[in-house]
């Protein structure tokens, strides 16, 4: 075996995990759709689907980890994984781009237009008389009632500091891994995901605060929509990232990863930097400016 590993690209011989995944997706999508249409059992079908997907992910990754540990992946396979992860992250960036696009469009186009800008003098005159464009805005119809915008200082700033710090700690962990300092690696990796979970906790707190004290809701016009959709999808990604970090941490404890061979570690680290970068965009355009 070992002699072949350098020469041969490892092509797995059949796998049932993708099919299981498709089945999970089927249940999840049908379930959530039925649920949204008001059919109660849909919710449980969705949960079942999600359970199948979690089962699939665990099983699939388990298989890959075992293969990786047994050394049948050569450098080329490793490169495939890396490039695959890179383009996956890029696709995530484009997903966020759609929502950032919506934010920019609302701020620079639709809100000013509703206020009568550009070729929309009559829009304001006939339909929304008296509406003056400002940002943040819940629109000329004051959707969701009066609200307060989320101030950039305070929690969001703390959150920024937390995420930035965690990006540093994960980098330190990476260097420790390459240098073979296992203890340092474990400590800094643990610090990273702990910071991540604190971030999520604070974000949840912020949401409660927004709903209860600021009357800022998903239904608060375009400001509420963009605020919650952007921070919400970001939060979801932080959660996924933090879970992945935790798993990597457990693998470190088990003695996985070497200085040369640690694709999974790097993939998670890249992902973590990605959620960090998105956050900075968020902080600047959603909270601050």
């Amino acid at each position, binding site marked *: 075996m070992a002699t072949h590993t350098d020469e041969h690209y490892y092509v797995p011989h059949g796998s049932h995990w993708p099919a299981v995944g498709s089945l999970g997706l089927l249940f999840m999508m049908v379930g959530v759709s039925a649920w949204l249409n008001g059919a109660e059992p849909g919710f449980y079908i969705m949960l079942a689907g999600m359970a199948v997907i979690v089962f699939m992910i665990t099983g699939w990754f388990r298989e890959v980890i075992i293969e990786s540990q047994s050394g049948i992946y050569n450098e080329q396979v490793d490169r495939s994984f890396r490039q695959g992860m890179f383009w996956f992250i890029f696709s995530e960036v484009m997903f966020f781009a759609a929502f950032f696009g919506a934010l920019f469009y609302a701020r620079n186009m639709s809100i000013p237009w*509703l206020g009568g800008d550009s070729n929309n003098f*009559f*829009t304001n005159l006939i339909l929304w008389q008296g509406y003056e464009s400002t940002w943040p805005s819940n629109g000329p119809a004051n959707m969701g009632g009066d609200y307060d915008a989320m101030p950039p200082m305070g929690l969001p700033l703390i959150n920024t500091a937390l995420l930035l710090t965690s990006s540093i700690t994960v980098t330190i962990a990476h260097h420790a891994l390459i240098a073979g300092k296992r203890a340092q690696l474990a400590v800094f990796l643990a610090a990273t995901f702990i910071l991540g979970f604190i971030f999520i906790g604070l974000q949840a707190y912020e949401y409660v605060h927004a709903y209860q004290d600021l009357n800022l809701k998903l239904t608060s016009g375009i400001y509420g929509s963009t605020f919650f959709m952007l921070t919400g999808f970001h939060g979801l990604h932080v959660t996924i990232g933090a879970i992945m970090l935790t798993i990597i941490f457990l693998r470190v404890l088990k003695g996985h990863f070497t200085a040369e061979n640690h694709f999974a570690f790097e993939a998670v680290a890249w992902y973590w930097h990605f959620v960090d970068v998105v956050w900075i965009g968020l902080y600047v355009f959603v909270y601050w400016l």
Partner: protein
Amino acid sequence: MIRKAFLSVLGLLAAGAANADWALNMPKGVTELSKETYDLHMMVFWWCVAIGIVVFGVMIYSLFAHRKSKGVEPAKFSHSTFAEVTWTAIPCVILLIMAVPAAETMIKAEDSRNSDISIVITGYQWKWHYRYQDEDIAFYSTLARPSLEARLPDSGVDVFSVENYLLEVDNPVVVPKGAKVRLLLTSNDVIHSWWVPELAIKKDAVPGIVNETWFQAEEVGTYRGQCTELCGKDHGYMPVVVEVVEPDAYQAWVDTRQDGDTKFASAQQ
């Protein structure tokens, strides 16, 4: 049904061949802008024909001349900087020639200043509402009865016998000849689009937004169009009819409309 279809189409083909009034091309229309649009359309069209003749000509020639059955030996070339630069540059020039008049017309089309009349048009599923801003006139305009009755699958009416099938309304828009009419379009539900080919304007009616456009008709007549943005079940059944009349006839229409008729029209729904 098939037989009915076949017979009616055969009849139509015969009639069509007889008086050759098949509409093959865009109407020239009755406004300065519609004529410019038509010219633009023809200009680009002829350029495409010309390029097509050259490209297809060369291709067809080589299909006949350079076939293996004639025993030719394939040439070895696979590159020519000169040729490639040429056929990048020439299209650029052609595009420039098209772009300039197109931009000019575009700029003209967007200039709705100094209008004589303004009409606010609101789209509904599935009818139009018109409100003349400076007069006390407002009314709905829906598909006319004869079409409405004929359109159902088992109406038993031959649609060929209905005059202006699907293109007739109960209350047409009336405007004076020569006046610059500004249209302010919006919608009450989903997006609609107001189109009259002869006037060369088509503008979307978007809920929550007011779009502007204008026309200045130079000929008296009745001009028909349709809603052109998919707006649900009866999207195919919300026509637009504009009657362009002499200014004094317009004034007469305004006078009759203003006493009482308005109430009747808006009470219709």
